[in-house]
């Protein structure tokens, strides 16, 4: 599996955990995977759109459905397409009594490997069979097509016993792939939605609960005595948990900053504005926040700033309680005093 970089959109909701446990909250991740199909899978999904199935012949003569771009034995590129039937036989199956989100059916069904007539390998798909007693290896099944086909594997809504009636689809088809009207499908879109229960570490939880009371709680590494805010699960220098609690003031300096000039989706402030690393007095690590309340061009390294807190009735376990930082008007900190934090 590749990493999720750049593809996640998260949504945190407010937490209601018991105070002694680390804070946790639902984390919902969603994104649409948009993939180009290339010549082999492209031919397959375009045929599905026309309610036909095409396989590809492997170098050993076997016909593979779904088609493979490269032969599983010789790794040779494959290109000889072979039409196959939309009926076939169950090679093996398992029963899913409680379907999970996104599956082809939300009522109990069978997962099956199905060898379509004219194919030598099998396709994994769902069979709407009602109960495990009415499905068996060797059973003949046929494709139940989606009501609207778009050029996607889910144009096959699921399979049904060959003599059985069409049943009602329970999952909506995926979004229509982007294409010119009538043009072949070259891109398929697959929506991915995952739900997690995200937990903060015990140290982060202390910090977040402190924010709900208007306090800035850092923690000190018992070995190197550096003070981290937010506290970390372990000191990155010593690899041991930060333990001693330190309440920090809401004043500090700008160590470095950038002026945001570029508008982007979801932006809350009109550019130009300043995102800065703020080093609170007594802390050994800076964190990212906004500097407002002055012209962006006047922000500089070493500038003294103070937190501008939102009204108390808006506070919760979040750094959002501080709307931004603003200049105090005090003299700047000398460069040497923060150079080692850059």
């Amino acid at each position, binding site marked *: 599996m590749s990493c999720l970089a750049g593809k996640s959109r998260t949504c945190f909701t407010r937490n209601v955990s018991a105070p002694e446990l680390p804070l946790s909250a639902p984390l919902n991740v969603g994104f649409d995977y948009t993939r180009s199909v290339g010549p082999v899978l492209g031919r397959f999904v375009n045929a599905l759109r026309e309610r036909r199935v095409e396989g590809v012949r492997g170098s050993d003569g076997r016909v593979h459905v779904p088609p493979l771009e490269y032969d599983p034995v010789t790794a040779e590129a494959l290109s000889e397409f072979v039409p196959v039937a939309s009926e076939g036989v169950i090679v093996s199956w*398992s029963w899913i009594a409680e379907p999970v989100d996104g599956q082809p059916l939300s009522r109990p069904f069978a997962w099956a490997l199905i060898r379509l007539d004219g194919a030598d390998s099998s396709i994994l798909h769902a069979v709407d069979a009602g109960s495990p007693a009415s499905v068996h290896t060797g059973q003949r099944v046929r494709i139940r097509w989606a009501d609207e086909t778009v050029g996607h594997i889910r144009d096959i809504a699921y399979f049904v016993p060959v003599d059985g009636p069409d049943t009602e689809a329970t999952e909506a088809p995926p979004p229509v792939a982007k294409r010119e009207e009538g043009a072949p499908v070259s891109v398929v879109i697959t929506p991915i939605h995952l739900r997690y229960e995200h937990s903060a570490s015990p140290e982060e939880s202390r910090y977040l609960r402190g924010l709900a009371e208007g306090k800035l709680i850092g923690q000190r590494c018992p070995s190197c005595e550096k003070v981290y805010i937010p506290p970390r699960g372990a000191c990155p220098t010593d690899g041991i948990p930060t333990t001693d609690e330190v309440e920090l003031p809401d004043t500090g300096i700008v160590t470095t900053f950038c002026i945001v000039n570029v508008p982007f989706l979801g932006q809350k402030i009109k550019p130009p504005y300043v995102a800065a690393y703020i080093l609170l007095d007594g802390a050994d690590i800076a964190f990212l926040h906004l500097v407002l309340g002055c012209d962006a061009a006047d922000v500089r390294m070493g500038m003294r700033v103070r937190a501008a807190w939102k009204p108390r009735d808006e506070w919760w376990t979040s750094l959002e309680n501080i709307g931004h930082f603003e200049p105090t008007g005090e003299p700047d900190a000398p460069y040497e005093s923060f150079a080692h934090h850059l």
Partner: protein
Amino acid sequence: MPDVAVVGFAQAPNVRSTPGTTNGVEMLVPIFAEVFERTGLSKEDIGFWCSGSSDYLAGRAFSFIAAVDAIGAFPPIHESHVEMDAAWALYEAWLKIRMGEVDTALVYGFGKSSAGQLRRVLALQMDPYVVAPLWPDSVSVAGIQARLGLESGLWSEKDLAEVAARSRADAAGNPAAQLSGTVEVAELLDAPYFADPLRAHDIAPITDGAAVLVLASAERAADLVDSPAVITGIEHRVDSPALGVRDLTKSPSTAAAGRALDLDGVEVAELHAPFTHQELILRDALGLGDQVRINPSGGVLTGNPMFSAGLARIGEAANRILDGSARKTLAHATSGPVLQQNLVATLEVLS
């Protein structure tokens, strides 16, 4: 090229869920301390660090970066990561030592499987065009594999229950195990199906956990522990991701990895089989006879921390050498759906 030996192994308790973070720091810090104490090494002595984990378990991009805090990564360290079971991170570390680039390495894996819905998250390991969009859960796909063997007479439901019962009995001696104890085969067979033909005992439990293992060149290893476990062979292979092309009752990639090694005289084998029938497939692929003791730790059917369970198999196989109870052991790790990718290693007493 220098030989490479395992000199230390530790794992976090295998549990159904922890209240901790998905970056594993809380699970990793204590077990790092444990291997450092056992080997007398400190973090400054480690030449290379490598880990295995998955963003999909955490639901966060680059989630493994936060785990680096548990290392104490300042001043900067020499570090890498694989989005696979950490057994493959061990392979990378083994190469670093073989190439003479470093003479010690620390490998770790972690996963908080309980944060999401594991069997659904694992659907994303499959082909992204024609399989993953259907969200086939990992248990159902393994059920299809199990039925192929049941209906062709390769194994029976009783054979599978016997694997589960033996694993749980063996896990009684493993303090890290999640499940253990005496269970009757008949009692297991009375339980309802979870995903016909699989019952709960056929399926490895959902487990949060972490493991760490320290490698050293054979020369260095001799100074660190009394009986280092030398990795005398290590190979990994992969089968086609196209499920319908494979004969799912066999594991050609495991067999190919095993053929590249000398398996004569193996006394103990730790096999990474998340489903009962997969243990039978692996034994067959490796040609392990009745004289080979399988999974004395209880195996992953008694605790399956994703992305560290394969590494832990190597650790358990090494422990039998480190504690003097065996002279030659085998470790197997798998990654991906229905035994897609397989790694096999042999470990022996330093001669």
